[in-house]
């Protein structure tokens, strides 16, 4: 029992989520930022509510949620936690709890929205 858990911690999990989120931030987020953050608000692209609603309810919507919201959220949480350490701010359990906690809340609420869509 003690042997099994000796020296284990959650760092590999956070790093795995950070890396997966980093890939998504580099591959999927640019497109989402361009379309939803810049082109649609400027009127270059016309978003259609009904079509979006139907599309989001499909499996594509789940993939969108995972790659553009959930994983990048954990990527951001990890960088902010280490960035705080770099600036000699906070540290220890509190940074971990607050950073990943917020990422988890964002992810769960995004998934919750999809399940109810």
């Amino acid at each position, binding site marked *: 029992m003690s042997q099994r858990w000796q020296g284990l911690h959650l760092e590999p999990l956070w790093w795995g989520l950070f890396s997966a989120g980093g890939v998504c931030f580099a591959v999927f987020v640019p497109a989402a930022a361009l379309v*939803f953050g810049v082109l649609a608000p400027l009127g270059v692209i016309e978003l259609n509510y009904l079509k979006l609603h139907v599309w989001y309810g499909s499996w594509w919507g789940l993939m969108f949620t995972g790659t553009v919201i959930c994983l990048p959220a954990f990527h951001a949480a990890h960088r902010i936690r280490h960035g705080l350490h*770099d600036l000699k701010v906070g540290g220890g359990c509190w940074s971990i709890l607050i950073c990943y906690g917020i990422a988890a809340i*964002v992810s769960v609420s995004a998934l919750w929205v999809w399940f109810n869509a």
Partner: protein
Amino acid sequence: MAYKPNLQRTWWLQHRFFRAYMLREATVLPLVFLLCSLLAGVYSLTSADAFIAWQGFMAKPWVIVIHTLALLASFYHALTFFQLFPRVMPIRLGDKSVPAVVMIAAQWSGTLTVIALFLWLFGGGL
């Protein structure tokens, strides 16, 4: 007898390399804002009125500015991340390792493909 200088919290201002590092880490700040906007967006899909309100929010000039920053940040992040990836996970085929430039080019083509896909999909292809 000896002395040890203490690292100041402004250490990253001392050198160009460290400033670039901090800029890389800071790319997540506009990202966080974008994530919240997109979360609000998927939430607003529950009703047409909410969606119109969300579109109104997204069209505010200061919001567009932050989202443009997020777009630029995502490109800067991609630039740095794609360079680091082949060093963390070098791929070997037989005795030869795949050259880093090939892996970097493959990753950029992924990003560009997704942009093309999104433009087609949300620009009327849905």
